[in-house]
C-alpha cells in the first residue's frame, strides 16, 4: 500500500469477543504497518484499542476474551494462529508492547533492573552482567535519573512517570521490529515526553521499527504519526495519513473528537464535547455504531458502512461522507 | 549375636529400688540378678542365694550366697553387698521398696557369703519379694557413688551389663563376660525397643527388625500363629483386671452402687466373662472372679467364675430398689480397656444398668481414684508371686492402694494372719475365709486375668514363658 514502507504487520478483519457478550468488542479491524512507519490509533476511551493491541500480542485475558475472527500477519507469520511457544519467541523480541497501566503491569516483587534485564537475557542469551548493563543503558535512554541506582529499586519506589519509562525501557530493550505502545507517555511531562518520543523515532530511523501507538494526545499524534486510525466502539471508522485526518476529518466521530481539543490559548468558554454515551454491547446499534450520537445520522446508517477510500490512503466508514455534500443534499 | 526385644512401653528409671513399671522388670531380668528366682510353677529357687532356712519362730532367715559372683563394675558380691542392698531398699528416701522389705528389722553378716535377716514378725511374703525387685542386688560401690541417680547407669550382677539408653528408643545391654552362669547365655547384646503400638510391634517382628516381643495383642494371636516364621508363647499372668467400686472413699461413694452390695452383685452377674474373653480377647485370656486366676493354687474353688444371670441380676437390683440404675465408670483411655468396658456396658444394660463411661488418661484416672472422685473405676493389677501382693493392700482398711476404702475388721484380721504364717494350708484357709466375705461385699468386681503372650521369631530356641511375664534369657539362643 505504501511503497516507502515494506509491510511489517497486516491485520485483517480482527474481531475480539468476550464470552457471554452479545457483540464483538473489537469488530472487524484491519490495518497495516510498514517498517519504520507509525500508525496511531485514537478513539473513544473504552472503544477497544487496548484489546486490539493485546490481541496482536496474544495476551487477551483468556478465557474471558477470544479472537473471534481475523488474521494478523507479522513478518510472514499469522499471530492469531501461532502456537504459544513460537509466540513467546516473538514477544518481547521482534514485537514488544508498552502497557497502559505501569503500576500494575510491573511485578511488585522484583527490582526494575531485574525486570528489564530479564527480557534481555531471554532473547539475547547474554550473561547477567551484560543484561544489567543493557538495562541501565535503557533506563538512561528513557531519561530516568540516577539510572544505576534505580535499577535496584522496586516499582513502588518510582513515581508514575518513572514506572512508565521503565516499561518503555523494557519494551525497547531488544530493539523490536514492531513496537506497540499503549498510551506510553500519559504520565510524562512534556519535556520527557518529547525525549521519549525522540528516542522511539531514533529507533525507527535506525532499525526501521514499526510503531503502533495508542494515544489520546492529539499533539503527540500530530508529531509522530505517519498514519492515523480512528476507532469508535470497536471499529475503525476512519483511517488515513496524519495530515488528512487532522485537516480533512471525514467521519462525524473524528470531527467531534477534533472539536474537543482544548486550545493552548487563553480560555474561551466551555470545551466542546460529543454528547451522549457509547452504547453498551447489548444495545449496540446494528448499523453504524456511532449513529446513536451522530447529528448527521440518517436512515442509511442502519446499514453497517464499509470502510471506503475517499482520497488516496484515506478511508472512512460513514455512509454520509463527505458530510458537506450530504448536509447540503438533506437541506435540498 | 544380638537379640532385639520389642517392649510395649518405655521403662522408667532403671534403679530396682526406684522403678515401678512392669516393663522395667523385664529389663532387669537380663540386667540384675535377684537373691532368689521362681519357676514357671511359682516355686522359689536359688539365684544369687544358693540356699536358705527359716528359724523356728519364722523371725530369722539365713541365706547362703553364691560365691565367685561379681557385679558389672568388678565389685564382688558378698554378704556385705546384700546388707548394703537391703539397707538401700529400706533407707534410700526415694526407695519404692520400703513396704516390701518393711518386715526386716536387721541384716547380719554371718560369713563372707552368708547373711541373716531378722524380722519383727514372721513374713510369708519375704521370699517372694526377694524374687522380685526387692531381691535385686545392685553394686554397692556404684550405688554409693551415684545415690539416687543410680538408674542412669545401673550396675548389677546379671547376665548383661548396661551400655546405653535412649529415652523412648532403646536400652542396650551387652553380655557380661564374668557372669556366674555365662554358659547359659548366648547373646552378645540385648536391645530393648519400646514400641507401644501392638500392630507395629508385630510388623517389626515380621520384618525381622525384632527377634521377639512381649504382650502380643490377643487379637493378633491367630494371625501370628498362622505365620510360619513366628512362634507364640503364652502364660496366664499373676494379675487381674476388674472394676473397683468406690464404697467409702469420700462423697462420691454415696450412691447405690457404692452403698449396696446387692447392686454390685447384680452388676457382676450381668456380665458374661466368657463372652468378654471371646469378644475382646479372642479367648486368649482367662475369665476370673478373684484376685488370682482359676489356675492358681490360691484360687477358691467354692466361688467359680459365675455364669451370667440377667434375671438374677435384675432381681437383685429390684431388691435394692431399682428398675434401672445409672452408674458412672471411669476407664483408662486405651482402646482395649474401652472396648472391654463397652462390652460390659452393653451387657449391664440388659440387666438394668445404664453405664456412663468416662475415658480418662491414666494420670487423671489415678488421681481421681485416690481422691475418691469416682463411682467405679476399671483398673487392674499386674500381679505378684505371693498371693498377699494381689489382695492385702487392696482390701485391708489401711491398705496402701485401697481406693474403694473398703474396710472390714474381719477381713483385715484374716489377711494379716495369712501374712505371718509360713504354712501354705493355713494361709489358704485364711484367704478362703476372706474370700467368702469379699465375694459378698464385692468392692472389686474381678473380670479377667490377662495372659502374657510373647511372639518370637522361629529362629529362637529355648524360651520359657513365666507367669510373671518376665523374659529370662538363660538357655535362649538362636537356632
Amino acid at each position, binding site marked *: 500500500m505504501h511503497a516507502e514502507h515494506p509491510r511489517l504487520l497486516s491485520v485483517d478483519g480482527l474481531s475480539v469477543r468476550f464470552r457471554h457478550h*452479545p457483540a464483538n468488542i473489537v469488530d472487524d479491524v484491519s490495518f497495516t504497518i510498514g517498517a519504520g512507519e507509525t500508525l496511531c490509533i485514537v*478513539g*473513544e*476511551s*473504552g472503544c477497544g484499542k487496548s484489546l486490539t493491541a493485546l490481541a496482536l500480542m496474544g495476551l487477551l485475558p483468556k478465557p474471558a476474551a477470544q479472537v473471534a475472527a481475523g488474521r494478523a500477519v507479522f513478518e510472514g507469520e499469522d499471530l492469531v494462529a501461532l502456537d504459544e511457544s513460537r509466540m513467546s519467541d516473538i514477544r518481547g523480541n521482534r514485537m514488544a508492547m508498552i502497557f*497502559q497501566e505501569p*503500576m500494575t503491569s510491573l511485578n511488585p516483587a522484583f527490582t526494575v533492573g531485574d525486570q528489564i534485564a530479564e527480557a534481555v537475557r531471554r532473547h539475547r542469551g547474554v550473561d547477567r552482567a551484560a543484561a544489567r548493563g543493557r538495562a541501565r543503558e535503557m533506563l538512561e535512554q528513557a531519561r530516568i*535519573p*540516577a539510572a544505576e*541506582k534505580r535499577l*535496584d529499586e522496586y516499582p513502588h*519506589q518510582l*513515581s*508514575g*512517570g*518513572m514506572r512508565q*519509562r521503565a516499561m518503555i525501557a523494557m519494551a525497547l530493550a531488544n530493539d523490536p521490529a514492531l513496537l506497540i505502545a499503549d*498510551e506510553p507517555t*500519559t*504520565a*510524562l*511531562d*512534556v*519535556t*520527557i*515526553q*518529547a525525549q521519549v*518520543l525522540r528516542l522511539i523515532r531514533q529507533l525507527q530511523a535506525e532499525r526501521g521499527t514499526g510503531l503502533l501507538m495508542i494515544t*489520546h*494526545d492529539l*499533539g503527540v499524534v*500530530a508529531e509522530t504519526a505517519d498514519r492515523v486510525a480512528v476507532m469508535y466502539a470497536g471499529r475503525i471508522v476512519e483511517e488515513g495519513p496524519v*495530515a488528512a485526518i*487532522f*485537516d480533512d*476529518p471525514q467521519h*462525524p466521530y473524528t*470531527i467531534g*473528537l*477534533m*472539536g*474537543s*481539543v*482544548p*486550545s*493552548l*490559548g*487563553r480560555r474561551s468558554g466551555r*470545551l*466542546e*464535547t*460529543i*454528547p451522549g*454515551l*457509547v452504547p*453498551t454491547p447489548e*444495545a449496540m446499534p446494528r448499523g453504524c455504531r456511532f449513529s*446513536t450520537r451522530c*447529528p448527521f*445520522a440518517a436512515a442509511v446508517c442502519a446499514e453497517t458502512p464499509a470502510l471506503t477510500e475517499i482520497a488516496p490512503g484515506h478511508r472512512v466508514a460513514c455512509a454520509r461522507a463527505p458530510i458537506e455534500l450530504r448536509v447540503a443534499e438533506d437541506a435540498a | 549375636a544380638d537379640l532385639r526385644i520389642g517392649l510395649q512401653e518405655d521403662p522408667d528409671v532403671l534403679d530396682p529400688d526406684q522403678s515401678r513399671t512392669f516393663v522395667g522388670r523385664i529389663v532387669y531380668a537380663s540386667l540384675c540378678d535377684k537373691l532368689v528366682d521362681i519357676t514357671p510353677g511359682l516355686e522359689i529357687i536359688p539365684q544369687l542365694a544358693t540356699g536358705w532356712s527359716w528359724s523356728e519362730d519364722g523371725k530369722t532367715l539365713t541365706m547362703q550366697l553364691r560365691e565367685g559372683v561379681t557385679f558389672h563394675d568388678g565389685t564382688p558380691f558378698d554378704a556385705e553387698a546384700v546388707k548394703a542392698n537391703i539397707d538401700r531398699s529400706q533407707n534410700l528416701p526415694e526407695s519404692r521398696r520400703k513396704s516390701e522389705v518393711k518386715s526386716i528389722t536387721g541384716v547380719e553378716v554371718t560369713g563372707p557369703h552368708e547373711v541373716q535377716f531378722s524380722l519383727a514378725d514372721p513374713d510369708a511374703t519375704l521370699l517372694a519379694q526377694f524374687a522380685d525387685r526387692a531381691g535385686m542386688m545392685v553394686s554397692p560401690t556404684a550405688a554409693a557413688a551415684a545415690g539416687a541417680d543410680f538408674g542412669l547407669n545401673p550396675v548389677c550382677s546379671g547376665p548383661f551389663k548396661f551400655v546405653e539408653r535412649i529415652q523412648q528408643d532403646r536400652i542396650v545391654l551387652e553380655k557380661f563376660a564374668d557372669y556366674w552362669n555365662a554358659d547359659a547365655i548366648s547373646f552378645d547384646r540385648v536391645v530393648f525397643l519400646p514400641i507401644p503400638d501392638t500392630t507395629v510391634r508385630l510388623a517389626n517382628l515380621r520384618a525381622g527388625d525384632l527377634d521377639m516381643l512381649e504382650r502380643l495383642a490377643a487379637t493378633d494371636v491367630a494371625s501370628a500363629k498362622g505365620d510360619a516364621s513366628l512362634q507364640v508363647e503364652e502364660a496366664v499372668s499373676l494379675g487381674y483386671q476388674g472394676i473397683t467400686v468406690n464404697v467409702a472413699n469420700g462423697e462420691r461413694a454415696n450412691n447405690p452402687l457404692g452403698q449396696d452390695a446387692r447392686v454390685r452383685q447384680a452388676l457382676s452377674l450381668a456380665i458374661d466373662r466368657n463372652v468378654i474373653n471371646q469378644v475382646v480377647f479372642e479367648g486368649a485370656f482367662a475369665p476370673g472372679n478373684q484376685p488370682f486366676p482359676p489356675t492358681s493354687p490360691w484360687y477358691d474353688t467354692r466361688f467359680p467364675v459365675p455364669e451370667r444371670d440377667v434375671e438374677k441380676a435384675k432381681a437383685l437390683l429390684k431388691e435394692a430398689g431399682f428398675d434401672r440404675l445409672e452408674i458412672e465408670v471411669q476407664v483408662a483411655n486405651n482402646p482395649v480397656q474401652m472396648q472391654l468396658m463397652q462390652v460390659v456396658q452393653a451387657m449391664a444394660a440388659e440387666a438394668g444398668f445404664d453405664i456412663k463411661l468416662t475415658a480418662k488418661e491414666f494420670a487423671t484416672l489415678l488421681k481421681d481414684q485416690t481422691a475418691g472422685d469416682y463411682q467405679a473405676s476399671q483398673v487392674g493389677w499386674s500381679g505378684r508371686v505371693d498371693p498377699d501382693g494381689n489382695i492385702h493392700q487392696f482390701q485391708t482398711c489401711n491398705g496402701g492402694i485401697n481406693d474403694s476404702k473398703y474396710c472390714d475388721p474381719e477381713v483385715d484380721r484374716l489377711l494379716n494372719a495369712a501374712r505371718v504364717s509360713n504354712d501354705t494350708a493355713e494361709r489358704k484357709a485364711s484367704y478362703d475365709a476372706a474370700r467368702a466375705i469379699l465375694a459378698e461385699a464385692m468392692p472389686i468386681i474381678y473380670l479377667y486375668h490377662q495372659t502374657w503372650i510373647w511372639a518370637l521369631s522361629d529362629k529362637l530356641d529355648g524360651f520359657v514363658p513365666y507367669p510373671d511375664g518376665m523374659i529370662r534369657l538363660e538357655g535362649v539362643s538362636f537356632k
Partner: protein
Amino acid sequence: MTGAVLETRGLEKRFVTHRPLFGTPTEVHAVNGVDLAIHEGETFAIVGESGCGKSTLARMLIGLIRPSAGQVLYQGREMSGLPQKQMRALRRDLQFIFQDPFSSLNPRMTIGRLVEEPMRAHGIGTPGERRERVGRLLARVGLRPEHADRYPHEFSGGQRQRIGIARALASGPKVLIGDEPVSALDVSIQAQVVNMLEDLKEEFGLTLVVIAHDLAVIRHMSDRVAVMYLGEVVETGPVDAVFDAPAHPYTRALMGAIPVPAPGARDSVAAILEGDVPNPTAPPPGCRFHTRCPFAVARCTRERPALADMGGGRRAACHLRDELPAFDTRAPEPGRTPGAARRFELWRTARSAGQDDRHRKTTQAEETQP
C-alpha cells in the same frame, strides 16, 4: 477568592530507598520545603517534571502520608494533629483522584459499590438514594449506569480513571485533588469531565488541585499554577501570566515542549530540554536546575535562589528572573486545524438542530435491548 483552604508550610518528604547495614541510608528528597496556599473556589494546578514530587505532595495534602517536616493546614488547622475521627470527617471534604486508577480500586468490589463507598463512609443518603446518585455520577463521567454491576478489571484504562473521578465526587467534597485525573481520557470525554468539574466549581465553590501534564488542559481549567522541579516549587502565579511569560527557565522549557495538535506545526522537537535529570538522592547544590539551564551563571551553582515575589501574585525561584531574554510566546494555535474547524462548524449546527432527534434515537437504541 477568600482565604486559603489548604496551606503548606515548609513541607518536606524524604523516602529511604536503601538502608545499608552500617552507614547512612540513601534518601530521596521527594518534596523539599514547599509553601503553598490554595484558595477556596480556585483551581490550582501543579505541573512539573515526572518524578519531581507532585504525587508525594498531593498525598501529603490529604494526609495520606505524613510529612517528614513542615505542616499542612486545612482551613487553618494543622492536619497531622487531628484525631482519627476528625480526620475521617475531614476526608469527606477532601477527596483524591489517584494517578493509577486501577490499583487504587478494590478488585473485589463492583463499580457501583466502589462509587457508593464514600457516601456510605460518611452516612450520606439511603441505599436507594445512593444507588441513584451512583448512576448519575457514572453518567456524568461518561460511563453507563449499567456499568455499576461490573468489576474494575472489566474496564479500559480511561474508564477506570473515570470511575476514580466519580468516586472522588461521590461524597460531595469541597476540595478535590486530582493526580492526573484526565490523562487517560480521549479528548471528548476529557472535555466532558473538565466541563463537569467547572460546573461543580461554579455551583458549589469546589476547590480543585490538579496535577497534570497536559498543559492545554491546565491552561483551560486553572486559575493559578505551580511549577515544580526536583521537589521544589520553582514558579507560581496566575495561569495566564505564567503561560504567557514564564519567568523560570524550567517553565520556559516546559512551554517549549508542548506538542501541537496539528501535523507539521512543529517541524522537529527542537526545544526539548537537554542534559541529564539530576539524581534526586544527591541533588545538585545551588539552583537545582543549573545543570540543565541554558542561562546558568556561576552564582547558580552555589546559591539557592529563593521563591521571590515578582508582583501580580507571581513568584519565581531564579536568580536571573529579571535578566532573562523575553519569552517568545508562540502564537496561541487553535486547538484544531482549519479543516477540522470547518467541519466542526457543520457538526455544531447539525447538533443543535437535531437535539431532539438524537434523543429519540438513543431511546430507540435502548429499546432494542433484550
